[in-house]
């Protein structure tokens, strides 16, 4: 059998694969099934990492400011666009194709850009903190719409990619399996970010202030906390994390208009499952949503989206504060 244009490596793999299937079915299949499972788990971790990076910022903002920030995923997408639209090109000009700087600098650049941009809309956050839920929902929804068109205005309407790090990092072959190295990098980075964030929140003075403010910001103020500074810190941290997430995520996907809303829907479920305003909840929730998505894709694809909402509702009914322990962070 002739396969046109496969390239040497490809053709070899194609034949190898056929040979294994034909001559040694029993043993290899067991091994392969284990591998399938491992790759699925690996995928779950990747999905959870991305969701965590979005949801944790959403949670921090809700925790301290009591705002369900519908525009938060737009921060994440702004990070994506910063890199896919501009940043990656700049980085490649500077670093060429050396992989390490291309892995590290884009997320940091994105985080910086997003955090600085969040300063511009900070007065709006200041305005809505303490206002009614409906006002907060509408204004952050308005922001989400504006962000979408800002992306279009600056970077155009076509999907943008920044896949160089993804491609340069290549794939790791385990047996006959290939898994992209970049995704491993994302998982590890998310873990490191979670760890640093945990240390900040639970071991630092500012972290203590943030946690106390999330419990009772008025009292924190009566004890001498500058509320504006606390809120600023909150928005900066949340947007920094979102930018970091966007910069990390984008090389493995493409920046697309309308992405914010897709992520909002998922991040929102993460937050509901994990518990509003809970750090631990973001981790738990991200993981659960990722597992649910993978399972439904295998077993009942029709329920892919419904199932995560059903789980969210069950958790809301049984434990309205979420699985992450609610106010405890």
């Amino acid at each position, binding site marked *: 059998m002739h396969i046109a244009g496969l390239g040497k490596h490809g053709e070899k793999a194609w034949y190898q694969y056929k040979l294994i299937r034909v001559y040694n079915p029993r043993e290899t299949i067991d091994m392969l099934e284990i591998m399938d499972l491992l790759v699925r788990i690996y995928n779950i971790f990747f999905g959870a990492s991305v969701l965590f990076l979005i949801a944790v910022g959403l949670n921090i903002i809700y925790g301290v400011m009591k705002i369900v920030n519908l525009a938060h995923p737009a921060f994440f997408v702004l990070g994506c666009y910063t890199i896919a639209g501009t940043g990656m090109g700049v980085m490649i000009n500077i670093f060429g194709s050396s992989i390490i700087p291309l892995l590290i600098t884009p997320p940091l650049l994105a985080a910086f850009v997003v955090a600085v941009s969040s300063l511009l809309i900070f007065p709006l956050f200041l305005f809505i903190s303490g206002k009614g839920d409906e006002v907060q929902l509408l204004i952050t929804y308005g922001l989400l719409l504006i962000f979408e068109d800002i992306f279009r205005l600056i970077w155009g309407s076509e999907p943008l990619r920044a896949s160089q790090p993804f491609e340069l990092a290549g794939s790791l072959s385990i047996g006959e399996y290939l898994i992209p190295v970049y995704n491993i990098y994302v998982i590890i980075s998310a873990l490191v970010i979670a760890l640093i964030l945990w240390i900040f929140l639970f071991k630092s*003075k500012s972290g*203590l*202030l943030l*946690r*106390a403010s999330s*419990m*009772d910001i*008025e*009292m*924190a*103020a*009566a*004890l*001498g*906390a*500058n*509320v504006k500074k606390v809120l600023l810190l909150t928005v900066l941290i949340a947007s920094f994390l979102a930018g970091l997430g966007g910069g990390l995520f984008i090389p493995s996907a493409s920046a697309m208009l309308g992405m914010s809303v897709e992520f909002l829907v998922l991040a929102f479920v993460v937050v509901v499952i994990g518990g509003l305003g809970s750090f631990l909840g973001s981790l738990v929730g991200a993981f659960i949503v990722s597992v649910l998505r993978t399972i439904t894709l295998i077993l009942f694809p029709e329920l892919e989206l419904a199932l995560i909402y059903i789980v969210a509702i069950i958790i809301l009914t049984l434990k309205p504060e979420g699985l992450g322990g609610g*106010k*405890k*962070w």
Partner: protein
Amino acid sequence: MLKVEDLHLRISNTDILRGVSIEVEKSEVVAIIGRNGAGKSSTFKSIVGIYKPSRGRIQVDDLDIIKLPPYQRVAKGIGYVPEDMRVFPWITAKENIYLAAYLSKNLDKIDDIMNMILTIFPEIKNFLDREGFYLSGGEKKMVAIARSLATLPKYLLLDEAFEGLAPIVVERFKDAIEMIKNQGIGVIIAESNVVIATKIAEKLYVLERGETIFHGSPSDLLNNQEVMKILRGS
């Protein structure tokens, strides 16, 4: 001296305060008496800066603080213990105190502060590492006062300090207030119970419908039938 003059406050078209005036010296215990809704808590919240009065003056040692945001008033020496204590529930008692010291930039003196607190409330040592949520009412009260003391205030506002406490515990707190007073701190207590107030305070103010209708010594008050009648609510 903490001096409140002619304070007016309006919240959503309702007059909450209509000319409240209070004076507190250092090392003095003053009580503000009034029925529920008379405006005691609102007066406190106006002094702390949670509410923005429409008219009037608030001075700490001849310095006008009415324009300052709450966190700057703390630096000027206003300490506040709200009615429901509002001890942060998910951090430990120690962290509550520690945070207050950090916020008022007294972290370098944290050892002295802890000493002072432990002399006034030795019991606190037993539950320093317990989270606020798991403290009993009396314990919460101690932590709330200790937390406020950690900001090294000149004037301490205690809203309903003795509400819901057993008589023995009330005695315990009376001693504590005495000790705080002896540190040179002016203590203002909002209280609806006339008996307790007259026992603790050297000077009394009576609020009714957002107005100061009486000020003077405990014996003056007990002799003033008119005011006592209002306070009894008849």
